[in-house]
C-alpha cells in the first residue's frame, strides 16, 4: 500500500535522525526540527497576501511538555497566593473602590482579547509551514487559553471576595448597550481574527502585544498596587511572563516573510493600519482607566504612553525590524498628539453615558482635579468646570433628575461614534484631535473622527458595518433599553452602573432613569 508523502517524509527524517534517547527538552526540540517537510503545495485555510518561509526559527525552543511543567509552577504560585495569603488578609476589600471598578473593565475586556488570541494564534499555526515557527505559535495558543482563564478568575475573585460584585460577575451581558464594548471588539476581536492572517499577526503580536501589553499589563500592575490591589499584579505579572514569547512570535512572523516580495508591497501599510486600529481604542481607554479609575496616581498617562509606545516600541522595537524593511507607522505622530487629551475627552463622554455601563464611575475629587491641572495645564477650563457643574446639578443623586448626557444636548454638543473604531467622540467639545467627517454611501450616513480611519473605511467598507448604539436604539427610552440589555443588578431594578462609588450614596434604579425621559437619537439623522 502506498504511503502518503507526509508519512514518507517523516520516515526519511527518522532514518537520518533517530528519535531522542533521553527526554532532554532541547534534544527533543532539535529532533522536531528534522520534520521540515516539503511544503511546496501546502496551503493555509486562511487568506493571506504573504508567503511564510519554510525554515523560520523561533526563539524560545520550548516543547509542549516543558511548557506545561513551567506553567503549572506559575499557576501554583499564583492561585496559592490568591487563595491563601490574599484571602486571609481580606485583600479584595482593601482595594480603593474606584480601582475596583476599573478592574471590572480591564480584566473582563482583556479576557475577550485573550480568548480571540487563541483563535488568532491557531490561525497562524495553520498559516506557517516551518515546524519551529508552528511550535512557537502552539506555545502561544496554550498561553492564550491560560490567560483567558486567568482574566476570568480575577473577576471571579473580586466578585467572590471583594466589594460590589455586580459587573465583575457578568459583564458580558451588557455588551449590546455599553458604548465601550464595540470598540473593544474591534481591537481585541476583529483585529486579531479577521482579514489577512499575517495582518492579524501584526495586529495581535507586533502591535497589540509588543506595543500595548507593556502599558496594559505592566503599567496596570503599578496602578493596581498604588490603589491597594494585590491580586492584579499577582495574576497580570504571571501573564506578562508569557507575553515575551508572543512578542518573539511577532518578530519571527516578520522574519518569515522578510524575503517574500509581498512584504515590500504590503507590510508597512498593514502595520500602519494595525497600529492605528489598536491605538485608536487603547490610547484613550487605557489612559481613562488608569487616571480616572484610580484615586492614587502613578504618573500621567501621556508619560507612560511616550515611554512604552513612542520610544520603546515605535523607536527601539520597530527599529530592530528596520533591516527587514519595517518602518515606524506614519500614523504614530498623530497618535502621539492624541495621547495627551484623548482620554480626558473620552471620560467626559463615558461619564455622561454612565447608565449604559457595567461599572461605577466617579467624578474627580478636588485633590484629583489639582493633579490633572498640574499635569495637563488647561484641564480645569475644559473639563474641571464641567464636572463641577454636573456635581452641582446633582448628577450623583437619583432624586436630581439630571443625567450629564442632558448637558451635551442642552449645549448642542452631539456625540458621534466613529464607524471604524466604534469609539464615541464629541467634535464640538474636545481637546483631542478628533474632527467630524460624515459621508453618505448608498443612502446611509457614516461618521469618522480621523483621516486614517476614513481611508480604512473607503478602502474596504464592508468590513465596518457594525451598527452603533444610537442607530440600534434610536427612538427607544433609556431605562427600557437598559432593562432589555440586562444592565440591572440581581434585584431586577437597580442599575449595575452607578455615577459614584460612595457607600452612603443612593443607587439609581430603572425608575429614576425613566422619570428623566431620555430617548436615544441618532445624531447623523440631523445632518
Amino acid at each position, binding site marked *: 500500500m502506498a504511503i502518503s508523502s507526509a508519512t514518507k517524509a517523516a520516515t526519511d527524517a527518522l532514518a537520518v535522525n533517530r528519535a531522542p534517547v533521553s527526554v532532554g527538552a532541547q534534544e527533543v526540540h532539535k529532533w522536531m526540527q528534522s520534520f521540515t517537510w516539503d511544503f511546496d503545495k501546502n*496551503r*493555509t*485555510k*486562511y*487568506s*493571506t*497576501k504573504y508567503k511564510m518561509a519554510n525554515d523560520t526559527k523561533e526563539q524560545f525552543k520550548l516543547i509542549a511538555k516543558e511548557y506545561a511543567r513551567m506553567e503549572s509552577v506559575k499557576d501554583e504560585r499564583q492561585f496559592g497566593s490568591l487563595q491563601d495569603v490574599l484571602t486571609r488578609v481580606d485583600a479584595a476589600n482593601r482595594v480603593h473602590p474606584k480601582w475596583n471598578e476599573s478592574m471590572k473593565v480591564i480584566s473582563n475586556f482583556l479576557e475577550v482579547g485573550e480568548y480571540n488570541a487563541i483563535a488568532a494564534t491557531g490561525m497562524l499555526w495553520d498559516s506557517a509551514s516551518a515546524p519551529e515557527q508552528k511550535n512557537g505559535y502552539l506555545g502561544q495558543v496554550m498561553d492564550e487559553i491560560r490567560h483567558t482563564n486567568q482574566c476570568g478568575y480575577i473577576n471571579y475573585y473580586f466578585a467572590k471576595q471583594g466589594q460590589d460584585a455586580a459587573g465583575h460577575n457578568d459583564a458580558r451581558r451588557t455588551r*449590546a448597550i455599553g458604548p465601550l464594548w464595540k470598540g473593544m471588539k474591534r481591537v481585541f476581536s476583529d483585529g486579531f481574527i479577521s*482579514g*489577512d492572517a499575517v495582518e492579524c499577526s501584526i495586529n495581535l503580536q507586533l502591535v497589540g502585544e509588543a506595543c500595548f501589553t507593556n502599558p496594559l499589563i505592566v503599567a496596570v500592575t503599578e496602578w493596581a498596587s498604588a490603589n491597594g490591589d494585590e491580586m492584579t499584579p499577582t495574576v497580570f505579572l504571571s501573564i506578562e511572563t508569557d507575553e515575551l514569547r508572543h512578542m518573539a512570535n511577532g518578530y519571527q512572523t516578520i522574519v518569515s516573510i522578510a524575503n517574500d516580495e*509581498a512584504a515590500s*508591497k*504590503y507590510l508597512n*501599510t*498593514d502595520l500602519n493600519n494595525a497600529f492605528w486600529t489598536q491605538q485608536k481604542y487603547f490610547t484613550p481607554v487605557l489612559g481613562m482607566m488608569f487616571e480616572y479609575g484610580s484615586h492614587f496616581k502613578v504618573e500621567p498617562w501621556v508619560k507612560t504612553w511616550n515611554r512604552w509606545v513612542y520610544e520603546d516600541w515605535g523607536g527601539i522595537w520597530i527599529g530592530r525590524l528596520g533591516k527587514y524593511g519595517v518602518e515606524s507607522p506614519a500614523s504614530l505622530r498623530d497618535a502621539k498628539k492624541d495621547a495627551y487629551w484623548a482620554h480626558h475627552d473620552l471620560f467626559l463622554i463615558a461619564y455622561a453615558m454612565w447608565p449604559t455601563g457595567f461599572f461605577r464611575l466617579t467624578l474627580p475629587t478636588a485633590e484629583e482635579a489639582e493633579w490633572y491641572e498640574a499635569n495637563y495645564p488647561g484641564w480645569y477650563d475644559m473639563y474641571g468646570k464641567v464636572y463641577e457643574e454636573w456635581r452641582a446639578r446633582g448628577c450623583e443623586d437619583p432624586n436630581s433628575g439630571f443625567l450629564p448626557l442632558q448637558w451635551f444636548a442642552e449645549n448642542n454638543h452631539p456625540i458621534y461614534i466613529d464607524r471604524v473604531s466604534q469609539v464615541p467622540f464629541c*467634535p464640538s467639545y474636545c481637546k483631542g484631535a478628533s*474632527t*467630524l*467627517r*460624515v*459621508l*453618505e*454611501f*448608498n*443612502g*446611509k*450616513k457614516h461618521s469618522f473622527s480621523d*483621516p486614517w480611519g*476614513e*481611508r480604512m473605511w*473607503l*478602502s*474596504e*467598507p*464592508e468590513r465596518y*458595518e457594525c*451598527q452603533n448604539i444610537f*442607530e*440600534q*436604539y434610536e427612538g*427607544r427610552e433609556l431605562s*427600557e433599553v437598559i432593562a*432589555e440589555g440586562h444592565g440591572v443588578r440581581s434585584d431586577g431594578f437597580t442599575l449595575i452602573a452607578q455615577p459614584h462609588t460612595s457607600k452612603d450614596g443612593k443607587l439609581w434604579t430603572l425608575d429614576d432613569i425613566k422619570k428623566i425621559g431620555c430617548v436615544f437619537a441618532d445624531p447623523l439623522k440631523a*445632518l
Partner: protein
Amino acid sequence: MANIHENPNRDAWVKKIAAANTLAAGVALLTDFRAKHLSPFKTDFSLELDGQWIELKIEQKVALLKFKEFSDTQILNNNTCGTNAQIVADVVLAKMDACTDMYEAEKIHINFRLANKPPVMPVNVFLDTDRILGTKLMELRNTDYYALPLEELRKVRGVKVITLQ
C-alpha cells in the same frame, strides 16, 4: 413596545420562512433576501437590526430542506441548484484571476458570497474558494494603498460628503 429580540419584523419573516417548503423555494428566498438586505451595496436599510437573525433562520430552513431532498454525495458536491459546486467555483475563480481592478474584484467576491454562502454551496468548496478570492482581493486593495488622496478616494468610492470639519 417591540424590542430588539421580539418584534413584528421577525414575526413576519418567521411566517414567510415557514411557508417555504421546497429546497428551490427556500434558496430563492435566501438569495433574494441576502441581495436586498445584507449586501454591502444595498440601498434598503429597513432590516438593519434584524437582517442577520432573519438570514440565520432562512439558512437553517434551507439546510434542513437540503438534507431532506439531497443524497449524501450531492450534499458534499453540489450547490442547492444541483450544479456541481466546483464548476460554479471555477467560473468565479477564473473571473477573479483575470481581474486587475480592486473595485471589480470586490464585486466578484461579495457577489460570490451572497450567491453561494452555505448552505447554498457545500462548505468544503465554499471556504477554499473564498480564501483564494479573498487573497486576490486583498492583494489588489493593498497595492499602492496611499496612491489616491482622500478627496479622490471618496470620488472613486462614490460617496457623498455630508460634512468635513
